């Protein structure tokens, strides 16, 4: 069970207290009623679902209740950083990124274990 740092409580808390809330930094268009179908699809339906470094929203739902942003590596399942909602996308410190990538190589993934059995 992961520990997640809530940027509002300024504390590492157990994963049980949090809920995932989708990809981060997708702003609701200002004049939403005037955007095209394509723009709406881009805003509402399409997500990157990237492997590796992703920015996503989490909510400290069984704590302070606040939504915040997190940079997480989906391969190592490591939280690289968390920051308050409303802040622009934060660059992940290089050292952390390196560590995550190094760990990525040591961490068991489906591709690395069962995958090469194919």
């Amino acid at each position, binding site marked *: 069970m992961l520990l997640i740092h809530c940027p509002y409580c300024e504390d590492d808390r157990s994963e049980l207290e949090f809920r995932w809330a989708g990809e981060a930094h997708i702003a609701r268009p200002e004049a939403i*009623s005037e955007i095209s179908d394509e723009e709406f699809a881009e805003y*509402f339906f399409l997500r990157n679902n990237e492997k590796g470094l992703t920015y996503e929203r989490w909510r400290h739902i069984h704590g302070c209740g606040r939504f915040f942003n997190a940079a997480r590596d989906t391969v190592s399942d490591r939280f690289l950083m968390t920051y308050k*909602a*409303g802040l622009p996308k934060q660059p992940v410190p290089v050292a952390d990124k390196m560590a995550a990538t190094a*760990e990525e190589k*040591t961490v068991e993934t489906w591709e690395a274990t069962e995958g090469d059995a194919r």
Partner: protein
Amino acid sequence: MSASENSGGFRIKGAGRHTPARTARFTFDGKSYTALEGDTVASALLAHGVHLVGRSFKYHRPRGILTSGPEEPNALLDVSRDAARRQPNVRATVQEVFDGAKIASQNRWPSLTFDVGGFNDVLSPFFAAGFYYKTFMWPREAWHRLYEPIIRRAAGLGEAPKEVDPDHYASRFAHCDVLIAGAGVAGLTAALSAASTGANVFLVDEQPEVGGALHYDAATTIDGQNGYDWAQSAAARLKAMPNVTLLTRTTVFGYYNHGFIGLAERVTDHMARPGRDLPRERLWQVRTKKVVIATGSIERHMVFANNDRPGIMLASAARSFLNHHGVAVGRNVGVYTAHDSAYEAAFDLKRAGVSIAAIVDCRADPGAAVLEEARALGIDVLTGHSVTDTAGRLRIKSMTVVRNGGSDTRKIKVDALLMSAGWTPSVHLFSQSRGKLRFDDSNQRFLPDIYAQNCVSVGGCNGTDDIAELIEEASAAGGGSVSVTAANRFEWTGGMIGAAEGAGPDTAVKAFVDFQHDVTAKDIRLAVREGMHSIEHIKRFTTNGMASDQGKLSNMHGLAIAAEMLGRPIPQVGLTTFRAPYTPVTYGTLVAHSRDDLFDPARKTPMHALQAAAGAEFEDVGNWKRAWYFPKRGEDMHAAVNRECRTVREIGGVFDASTLGKIEVVGPDAAQFLNLLYTNAWDTLKPGKSRYGIMTREDGFIYDDGVVGRLAEDRFHVTTTTGGAPRVLHHMEDYLQTEFPHLKVWLTSTTEQWAVIAVQGPKAREIIAPLVEGLDISNEAFPHMSVSECSVMGVPARLFRMSFTGELGFEVNVPADYGPAVWTAIRDRAEALGACLYGTETMHVLRAEKGYIIVGQDTDGTVTPEDAGLSWAVSKKKTDFVGIRGLQRPDLVRGGRKQLVGLKTKDPRDVLEEGAQIVADPNQPKPMTMLGHVTSSYWSENCGRSIAMALVAGGKARMGETLYVPMADRTIAVEVSDMVFFDKEGGRING
């Protein structure tokens, strides 16, 4: 007879650590035995010369006790206290004997010594690896009806108890600085070191006492003491320290993310008469800053023909039975080894007076020191020899010994055979922590390499063989310092993995690799020949290492045999992944308190008990218990609901609406916020008025609905559906915090703060009027959709004039604690006037008679307000609300969408089934064109006919059309109608 003779003829006087006078009686397969307190079931049975304890999984071969620890694959027994307290698949080497234990062997019929399933062994040429996959393929149908039931009956291990588990289980959270897994020499040293720094230390060991390998290793001295005694005194010192928690009989079963550790503590399984207040087991969920893994290593067996007969066991196990339990595993014992450690077992037994038939060592050059000692003790050692076969049906009688590569064959009589192929470091927890292993080629073992978490492996599990080095390593790992001096008698060398002499690729013998799943060396070679080249495939094809022991003995042998066949080095073939739990954990432990009423706690309204006393039947709505209907004597559900429906419309009814979600929306921008979250316009709603609101998601589909009352300019009382309350609040918080953070609004869940009593029907006003204070509730002063704060029976209240029945109605909100008192008063008034209590079923029928939708029943996440006939509730003037753009999407504005309509069956007595499909042409061949489905359907007593609501393609354009509902036995003709079946003019609501 002396106590020690009583406790078994194989007890050795003066050996072992149990007190001869303290005995415990138990039965095994109905026969009574005496054990000593501290015995495991295995040691107690061996003390009586009982080796045969089970039948193997697939071939039903007689099996004995192979190990003395949790890695045991063979001796799985059924242990019970009474009928309900029965546990199958208990490892005899772990379970401590308690007085009165009833123990039975498994997987045999009719008896352990004569088992019909044993014919599988004779037929084994047909039962090679993959046999089931290949044989039971055709016909497909037969798999469920024939093959699977037979295979399951034949291949099962123990039988699960059918009674409810009467024991209780506990659960605890803990935090610490250092958690040490394993309390052998390394673990104890690390704990002493860590504790000396003042750190908060958890020291955890699965055995009843600390000591680890010192249980069997009687030759090691520490600080001038016998090793085992040193361990006990170290434990006593640690226990006395306030910063140390020492847990024995506790398994570290899982090492998860961020230092999260799962422990299973067995509290009462060893007790004869456990106190009723004690939990049977306790789950610990520990978050630790650092882990010291000191889990030691596990001895491997030798892989040779018929290496599975009862009486054949690991050398360290025999040593443990002798040195800890005082039991000799035989009177004339042979040893077959590739490692020096087995010699020490022979030395211990020899000194205890047991005859050693021979030490057969497959190596040409064993360690010089052990050879010399063997000579000094007069033990016959055959180096460069191998055991290539054994004999004895229910117990080993002899071993066949061959000079390696030669033909010099001889049979040696033995009644027990000890074996050792060397030691496998227990890297399970390290691997679970996501650490990466490396292969130590010189010692043919996997060792910790790259760490993924803040942990450190010390001692045997780290490949540290030298005891002085081990102590240094463990002391450093603890972070403090401790002075411990230890000495071994012998330095060990040797070890092998893979098949031994006489069990090579050119043979067809049964040399078992995995005892629990009956996997032989031949099976693994077959898997490779059949094209399995990945260890993951080989594992699944053969099931090697997939039994409940997870291959603690078999993995390395299996890997070596596969690598040899593939002609690839071991690290390239790879190791299968170790996963939690390390040993099986009972469901009881994992579930702990979360069972029965606490499994999924029921939510009850303040008036629950009053309704139960009134005879209510309840239904589950999410976690809520809601009164469903109130049957009177002799009434079935149908009769009760009909009566309630009639009474509400003719006189009145009282209904508990407390479960509706309630959110208090407060702040100067509250109206603007609701404007953005609901389709309706809220700035036009005056304080003192309420309005039905619809919430859509950004995609334009209905998400929730409810009545919203404006109590003041800056205060709204929002209601949601019963099931929708949490997600609606989450949805609102999401927008408020992240999209509209400039709005000054505060949201508070008040669902459980208010008890809500709905009073509906022509006499609703008359029922509540005398109880309402400080408010004129006449039709003129308080018309439909009014809301006001007032007091009811002296209790501060919020009164809504609203209706989900189409009748004159009020909803009385009072603080939850006052709910029962106010409910009682309203109920008494109502019943005196001839009104009744009604439940959710009547509520459903009455709302359907008026065509009011229920979100989630009549909508399914693909229904727009327009589809549901609610376009009037969507503001045309607003320039923004959540869903405004989604509603303009081409598919949402096209014609022919499924729309909510009413359905009347041609025969008014027919009640449609909810979910039934609707077609235009009942004679169309399958697959028929389905137009939609029935969403709500009831018998309406008030209409004297059935009524239904349905989502039908282009429904609003089909008014009066005849459609069909094909059922399994007949087709029902229906007429499309509007959704208002009762009081079409809607006058009653303003009564």
